[in-house]
C-alpha cells in the first residue's frame, strides 16, 4: 500500500521548521549524560530544536537554561562540556541556580537598573528529567508529563539499563546527509539487516520479525485528534527490549572488568521517539547511545556515545575498549548511513511515493500521526 510520506516531508525547509515547533519543541528529548555534569559547576551545552541550551550543575542541582546572556546575548557557556560557574564571558553578569541574575559588576555605577528591573532578569528555564544516568529535556513552556510520552515499562527497562552506565564516556558526532526521519524508518525495519548488513551485523545477530495478519496498518484516519489523544497515540512509538538473538558473547578480557547489566544474552534496542536510539549488542556489557539531531531537511547530526557497564575498578586501557567498540559500531552504522544518504540524494518533489508492506505497520502508524500533525492545526 502507498505510504503517507510524500517526498516533501524529507525535502521542505518549511516542513522542517514546522516539525521543530510542533514536535521537537513539545516533546521530551535526550539531552546528555549525568556523568558529564556530575560536579559542581560542570556543564554541557547543546542546541536543541534551534535553541541553545546550557545544562549546569549548581552544588548538586542540575538545571537547564537558555544559553543566552540577558545583557547582550552572548552564550554563557561555550564548548560541548566543561566546568565553570555560570558567568557571562562578555561583561561578567553571573546567574544563580534559579536563572536569576546574581551579580552585575558595577551595576549601580554604569547600568543604573531599578531594583524591579534587576529582579525581572531571569534566564528561560527548561524542564529536565533524569532517567538513570540519562537526561531528558523539554523545551515547552507547559511540558507534558514524561509518563505521557513514554510507557512505564519502556521507561523502567531503559532506566534500569541507564543505571548501570559507567562514568567513562566516549563521544563523537557524524554529519549525515539525510533527513532525520529516514533513520527511524530504518531502525524500525529489521528486514534490511540480512541484506544491508549481510557480512557485519547479520553474521552475529538475528532479528526475528513478523508481519501479523491482524497488523494495524493505519488505513483509517486517527480517531482522537485532541491534544491528549495525539499524545496517547504517540506513546507506543517508543519501545525497547531484547529484540535480537545473538551468539554467546565472545569472552574477551574486558567483559570481566565490568558489572554486567542483567544476564540475558540478547541484542537490546530502545527507540525513544523522536530521535534517540540505544543499542546494547552484547547482552548488557556495553551500550551505544545514538542521538539524531535534525540540522536541516537533508542534514542530521548523529551524536554517538559509547559506554560500558560500570567498571569494577578503573584500569588504564579502558578507553581503548571503548574505542575498539566505537570502531566496530561504526562499520555497521556506516552501512546504514551510506544507504540513507543514497535514499536522500535520490529524493525529489515528484519522486514516487513509497510502497509499504504489512511488516511496516509501526512505521505506518507513526506516519499517520506525523502527517496529521503536519497537515492540520492540531497540537500535542
Amino acid at each position: 500500500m502507498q505510504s503517507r510520506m510524500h517526498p516533501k516531508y524529507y525535502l521542505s525547509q518549511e516542513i522542517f521548521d514546522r516539525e521543530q515547533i510542533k514536535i521537537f519543541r513539545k516533546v521530551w528529548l535526550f539531552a546528555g549524560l549525568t556523568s558529564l555534569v556530575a560536579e559542581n559547576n560542570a556543564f554541557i551545552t547543546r542546541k536543541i530544536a534551534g535553541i541553545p541550551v546550557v545544562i549546569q550543575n549548581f552544588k548538586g542541582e542540575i538545571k537547564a537554561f537558555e544559553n543566552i546572556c540577558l545583557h547582550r546575548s552572548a552564550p554563557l557557556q561555550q564548548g560541548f562540556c566543561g566546568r565553570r560557574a555560570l558567568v557571562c564571558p562578555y561583561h561578567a553578569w553571573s546567574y544563580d541556580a534559579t536563572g536569576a541574575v546574581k551579580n552585575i559588576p558595577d551595576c549601580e555605577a554604569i547600568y543604573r537598573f531599578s531594583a524591579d528591573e534587576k529582579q525581572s532578569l531571569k534566564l528561560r528555564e527548561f524542564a529536565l528529567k533524569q532517567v538513570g544516568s540519562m537526561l531528558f529535556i523539554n523545551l515547552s513552556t507547559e511540558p507534558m508529563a514524561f509518563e505521557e510520552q513514554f510507557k512505564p515499562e519502556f521507561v523502567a527497562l531503559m532506566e534500569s539499563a541507564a543505571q548501570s552506565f559507567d562514568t567513562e564516556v566516549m563521544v563523537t558526532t557524524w554529519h549525515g546527509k539525510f533527513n532525520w526521519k529516514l533513520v527511524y524508518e530504518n531502525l524500525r525495519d529489521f528486514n534490511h539487516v540480512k541484506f544491508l548488513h549481510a557480512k557485519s551485523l547479520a553474521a552475529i545477530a538475528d532479528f526475528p520479525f513478523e508481519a501479523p495478519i491482524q497488523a494495524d496498518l493505519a488505513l483509517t484516519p486517527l480517531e482522537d485528534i485532541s491534544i491528549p489523544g495525539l499524545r496517547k497515540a504517540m506513546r507506543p512509538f517508543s519501545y525497547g527490549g531484547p529484540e535480537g538473538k545473538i551468539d554467546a558473547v565472545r569472552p574477551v578480557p574486558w567483559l570481566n572488568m565490568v558489572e554486567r547489566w542483567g544476564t540475558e544474552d540478547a541484542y537490546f534496542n530502545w527507540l525513544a521517539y523522536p530521535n534517540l536510539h540505544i543499542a546494547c549488542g552484547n547482552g548488557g556489557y556495553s551500550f551505544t547511545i545514538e542521538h539524531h539531531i535534525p540540522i536541516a531537511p537533508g542534514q542530521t547530526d548523529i551524536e554517538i556515545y559509547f559506554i560500558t557497564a560500570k567498571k569494577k575498578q578503573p584500569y588504564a586501557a579502558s578507553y581503548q575498549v571503548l574505542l575498539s567498540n566505537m570502531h566496530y559500531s561504526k562499520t555497521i552504522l556506516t552501512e546504514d548511513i551510506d544507504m540513507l544518504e543514497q535514499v536522500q540524494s535520490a529524493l525529489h518533489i515528484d519522486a514516487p511515493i513509497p510502497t509499504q508492506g504489512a511488516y511496516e505497520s509501526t512505521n505506518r502508524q507513526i506516519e499517520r500521526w506525523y502527517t496529521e500533525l503536519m497537515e492540520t492545526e492540531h497540537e500535542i
Partner: protein
Amino acid sequence: MKSRWVVGTGDYLDLAYHAWTQASATEDVQKITVPQGADYEFDLSIFDTLHPELGDVFIAVDDRFGNFKRMELFRVALERGFTLSSFVSANADVASEAKIGKNVFIGPQAIIGHHCKIEYNSVVHAGAQIGANSHLRASVWIEPGVQIGSRVEIGTHAIIRTGAIVRSGIKVGKGAELGWPQLYSADIADKTVYDTRYDEPILVYGS
C-alpha cells in the same frame, strides 16, 4: 654468539627484524612471532625458551590497542630479566645527549633534536623529526615523516600518524591519536582521537 630475539607480531615485527639484522653482524638475530588468540590475548609460552644469559629481547608490536599490546610484552620481558636495549638506526640523526629509554625504536632518517627525551617502549619511525627539548613519554608511536616541533610533550600511549605536524610547545595528552593529516596547534586533551574515518574528533570524558 649472542642472540637477539625480535619478538612480537605484524608488519612492525618484520620491519624491526630487518633493521636489527642489518645493524648487527655480531649477533644471531631471530624473529619470533607471538600468536594472539581469538580473545586477543598473547600466548606467552615462547618466553620459556629464551634466557637472558644467552641474548636480549626486542619487543616489536605495533600500535594496536593504543600501544597497550606492545607494553604488555615489554613488561613480560622486563619481568623475565631481559635488558631490552633500544634500536637506533645508523642512519638516524640523534643528538648525542638525547636520552633514549629501553626498547625504543628509532628508524632511518629520523631526526631527534638536542635534549630530547624518548621514554621506554616508544617507536619513532623513519624520517620523523622531533624538535629540540621535546619529551616523548612511554609507549608512544610516531609514524614515518611526522614532524614534531620543539618543546613538545607527548603523553604515554599517544599515536601520531603520517601527515601530522605538531607545533612547538604543544602538549599532546596521554592516549591521544593524531590521525588527521594537519597542523595541530593547540594542546590535545587526553584520549582525544582524530581518526580519518570520522567527521569529528572522538572525545573521552570521565574515568
